[in-house]
């Protein structure tokens, strides 16, 4: 038994190291366009991974992740515009904003289950969209906010300006760190309780776990990492815009999850990559109507491949 486990972990960590090394080397060998694209895929992957905590592990489909993502963006923008152009301050503001919003959403939405939860999270994200869209004085309304990218520094020392390569490494480090952290959390007793809620909520409650508190914690954890993705996206693109609080981002997040394979943490990142690459391909033929073929592929995957691309490896990835 011990031997099998060892074999699994050697293969798993070797594969993990291979992927990370490939992503570290990648910006050095490809063109600027692909470098930016892969960085973007990593950010969308982080967003999708955060929502996988709810969809894949706790069994709650969130259609409102754009709220956390968008607040992360606006939080970063607020820190950079009002205070100093400091990367860590932007992170703190973005994460703080996302945490507050997540607490609010979690408190209300976790009273409901299944589809009701999905609809409620969707409606909450629209509330934040309307608020951000209409408070023109504060958020710039439709135009959003523009700011310049902060430099990378540790404790105010050695500030280095981000190039697209160093930004890629920074994003990669954050995403890999988040993956390892979330993987550990999902293996912890907390993660086990979430999976038990997914499998049988009534029984979990009967055993004595405070199910709603666990769910709230899950929504908040998920919202926090979605906010982190928002901060990264804001730093990459140097703006915050209401479009990114809008429902389409939440919808895309769900698509990444379903395409990549829920309940694997790694799958949603693959799903994001798959989606963005398909978008690139279809944009060539269908211009801005690329969502027509992509939507059809998505529907087909829901029907014929409900486990997603990595679904076959779900147990293996969670060992």
């Amino acid at each position: 038994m011990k031997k099998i486990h060892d074999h699994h972990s050697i293969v798993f960590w070797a594969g993990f190291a291979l992927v990370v090394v490939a992503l570290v080397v990648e910006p050095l060998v490809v063109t600027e366009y692909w470098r930016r694209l892969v960085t973007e895929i990593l950010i969308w992957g982080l967003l999708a991974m955060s929502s996988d905590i709810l969809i894949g592990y706790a069994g709650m489909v969130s259609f409102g992740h754009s709220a956390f993502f968008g607040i992360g963006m606006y939080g970063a923008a607020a820190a950079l515009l009002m205070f100093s152009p400091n990367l860590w301050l932007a992170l703190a503001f973005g994460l703080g904003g996302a945490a507050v919003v997540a607490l609010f959403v979690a408190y209300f939405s976790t009273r409901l289950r299944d589809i009701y939860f999905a609809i409620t999270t969707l409606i909450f994200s629209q509330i934040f969209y309307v608020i951000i869209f209409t408070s023109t004085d504060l958020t710039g309304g439709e135009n959003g906010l523009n700011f310049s990218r902060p430099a990378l520094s540790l404790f105010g020392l050695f500030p280095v300006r981000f190039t697209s390569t160093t930004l890629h490494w920074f994003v990669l480090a954050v995403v890999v760190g988040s993956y390892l952290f979330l993987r550990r959390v999902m293996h912890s007793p907390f993660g086990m309780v979430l999976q038990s809620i997914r499998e049988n909520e009534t029984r979990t409650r009967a055993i004595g776990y405070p199910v709603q508190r666990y769910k709230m914690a899950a929504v908040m954890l998920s919202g926090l990492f979605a906010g982190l993705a928002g901060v990264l996206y804001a730093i990459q693109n140097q703006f915050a815009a209401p479009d990114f609080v809008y429902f389409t981002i939440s919808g895309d997040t769900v698509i990444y999850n379903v395409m990549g394979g829920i309940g694997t943490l790694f799958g949603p990142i693959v799903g994001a990559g798959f989606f963005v690459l398909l978008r690139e391909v279809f944009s060539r033929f269908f211009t801005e109507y690329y969502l027509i073929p992509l939507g059809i592929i998505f529907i087909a995957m829901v029907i014929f491949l409900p486990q997603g691309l990595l679904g076959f490896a779900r147990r293996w990835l969670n060992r």
Partner: protein
Amino acid sequence: MGAVLDFFQNFPLDEFLIQTVNGVVTGMILALIASGLTLIFGIMDVVNFAHGELFMLGAYIGVVVLAATGSFWLALIVATLVIALLGAALQITTLRPLIGRDPLTTILATFGISLVLQNYALWQFGPVARKISEPITGQFTLFYLQYPWYRLVIAALSAAIIGGFYLFLKFGTFGIWIRATTQDRTMAQAMGIPVPWVLTAVFAIGSGMAAASGVLFGPLVGVDHTMGLDWVLKAFIVVVVGGMGNLGGSIAAAIFVSLLEAYASIWVSPAQAVIVSFVVLILTLLFRPTGLFVPTPK
């Protein structure tokens, strides 16, 4: 105290009454959309994310038929039938394979459908909003406003469609089949009711109702490819506030929410008035998660 007195002295009574009429008119349209949504949910356990897109496509077909024939009423009927057929086709191809799976997968599938339909509409009709001209142009005086008769006609027509549908459910043979399927799918099947076709027909009817409301509502707002999402969101709110799968509750909630939004728009901009319905939703979820207009569950 002074502020309160001031409020009542300056209370815009005429505007309040105008907004009451407006609220009831929008409420009836919303009720028509929401009753299709709640019907599909109550009977099929399907959350139809594509409902707003069926509403939008219905309005577009109305635009096309109106341009070709010049008859609004013909446009209304054709749009309803075409979208009902489209609904049936969508149900057979995408939702039928999902019967028996987690209801959440139906959200995903209908979400995919909504993406495809929305982008299809953008591709086919372009980003510029189209206009449907009102079939009835008469107006009457309501305080300081010339109020169009057409708005009252829409409210009455929506009520008639919902009422006719209710009678059909209550007394028609097929309506009885539908109700039997809602209560117990397996038993209905055992009694010889063709359950898969009942489900298809329900989806078709719900889609047709969405299309009818799209054409009716077209003259009040422009028809464009994004109009679906706003309305489906409102309809979701109404369906949750009214109690999922409860037709009477949805209608009451539609009028209630629309009235509140209409009153709110006296003081704030219409874009912000939407927040009122969100607040209603939050309060409902907090205090009566089963819905405002359903009897207290035991």
